[in-house]
């Protein structure tokens, strides 16, 4: 065994090592940056692809695509107003049902729940977000819709005499705007409640203690000291739920009845933008029909983009305040 005393080699080796390090770091940085750049690139690519596809329809139909309610494929008329109306109404119904429930659960979990119950209930509510849309749709067709048709709708219309208002009148077919709203409420609930719970938990203890020390009851403490503090975060959560409801496709397509008409009654079948695309896109043969559906997709894309961006911004606002 002979030792090799070679100082020249060591320095070389060290230089090589430093060199390798620099190259390795450089490559690593380039690769991870490239991966990160995919995300904004994806957003831009989606926008370009959809708007490019929608352009023929926009230029040919103009504003009538949003204002006209005449969607007749054979006649080449594409007015998406009923679908836009249906998207907005079904989402509104969903929020009206889901918001109080979701905030109620969030308050329960952050303030009143016994410790042992907090995990299981929180988990069960979170799991609602994991159930696939098509499973909600299946359940909607065979359980919810018959239930609405035979029990809930007659009850609302005849027993509560809400049939006198335009909103709950007409025959109860089953597949309806109401059914879509209820399904969407179940689907939006976990999103609203998760964000609300998070921001409620972030409210400092001192805020609660101060209210109680001033003689507030527990409810007054929540109403006057906790909720105002968490308000913008909760609104962010509601908007996040709204974003989900606006773009939800399968479950809605399966229970809304898919008829392109505007009706004030929630018992009447309707259409949403997403279900319109889902139903007709693969069968669209004419170029204009395809382009019109892409235009509906573009409108949906823009609306959900704005709602989601606003929601995230609101939630971030709150969590940033907490971090400071």
């Amino acid at each position: 065994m002979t030792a090799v005393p070679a100082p020249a080699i060591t320095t070389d080796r060290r230089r090589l090592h430093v060199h390798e390090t620099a190259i390795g770091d450089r490559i690593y940085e380039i690769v991870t940056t490239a991966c990160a750049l995919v995300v904004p690139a994806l957003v831009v690519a989606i926008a370009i692809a959809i708007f490019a596809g929608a352009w023929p329809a926009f230029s040919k139909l103009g504003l009538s695509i949003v204002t006209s309610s005449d969607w007749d494929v054979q006649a080449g008329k594409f007015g998406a107003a009923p679908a836009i109306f249906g998207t907005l109404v079904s989402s509104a119904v969903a929020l009206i049902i889901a918001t109080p429930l979701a905030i109620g659960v969030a308050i329960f979990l952050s303030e009143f729940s016994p410790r042992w119950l907090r995990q299981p209930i929180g988990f069960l509510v979170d799991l609602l977000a994991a159930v696939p849309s098509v499973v909600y749709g299946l359940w909607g067709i065979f359980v919810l819709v018959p239930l609405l048709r035979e029990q809930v709708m007659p009850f609302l219309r005849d027993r509560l005499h809400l049939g006198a208002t335009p909103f709950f009148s007409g025959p109860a077919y089953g597949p309806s705007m109401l059914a879509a709203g209820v399904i969407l409420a179940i689907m939006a609930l976990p999103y609203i409640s998760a964000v609300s719970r998070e921001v409620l938990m972030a409210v400092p203890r001192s805020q609660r203690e101060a209210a109680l020390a001033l003689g507030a009851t527990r409810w007054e403490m929540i109403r006057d000291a906790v909720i105002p503090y968490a308000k913008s975060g909760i609104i962010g959560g509601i908007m996040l739920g709204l974003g989900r409801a606006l773009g939800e496709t399968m479950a809605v397509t399966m229970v809304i009845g898919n008829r392109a008409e505007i009706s004030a009654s929630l018992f009447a079948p309707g259409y949403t933008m997403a279900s319109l695309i889902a139903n007709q896109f693969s069968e669209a043969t004419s170029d204009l029909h395809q382009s019109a559906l892409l235009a509906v997709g573009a409108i949906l894309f823009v609306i959900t983009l704005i709602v989601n961006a606003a929601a995230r911004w609101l939630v971030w606002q709150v969590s940033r305040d907490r971090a400071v």
Partner: protein
Amino acid sequence: MKSRLARHGISAAMIGLTYLAAILATLPLLLILAHLIKKGAASLSLSFFTHMPGPVGEVGGGMANAIVGTLILIGIACAIGLPIGIGAGIYLSEKRSMPLAQSVRFLSDVLNGLPSIVMGIFAWTLLVRPAGHFSALAGGAALGAMMIPLVTRTTEEMLKVVPISLREAALALGYPRWRTSLSVVVRTALAGIATGALVAVARIAGETAPLLFTALGNQFWSTSLREPIAALPLQIFAYAISAYDEWHAQAWAGALVLISIVLVISLAARLVTRSKFGAPVD
């Protein structure tokens, strides 16, 4: 000024209402699971996993092609979504406060909220229209694109909890940055990253809308990436809206299989994150 009694009465009533909300909010999930088990278990048997779909009016048959199709689609999606998502997640955790990191984080969250049907028409314009035919590849790509923002955010969350002292120790020992990041930081958080990947898989496994005009569905056996391919959610959808009782029964069985997969993954992810990092991130 209301009386003390009235104020306390209102308080008790409102607290009662939050209890009620908790019960009402957990009810739908329990109802759905109960119905799935009741109706799905009846038509679930071994042949469901090994047989092809039967013709109309015939009891039995299975969804072997749809189950294999779903696995293939998940495979394609993972091949696209995991490397990019994990890479982007690493970037976010390394360059926490760079302006690019901020906007990538924000856009990932926005992409996560994008309707899945929009992702479907995006994949259609990019991969189906130029090719002139529906394909498994387009379906997998749509699902993969949905995975990217999901995996990005969970990877970042998992890397965030790795103590900074570990990173400092490795750098002090003369490790280059890239090795510190890969073999110290990422390795420490590996279980968490894998969990995040699993959760993303659970999310996309049940997606139907992005597949409607990409993978399309297929009544026959096909594993070709360039042909339309069957998928479990698509098959459930087609059977659910059909007019035949035998197909409805199959749809329930398929839904039971699908939700079992999703729930097992979610449950496992919950347990892993809890044991690894103390209390789960609520």
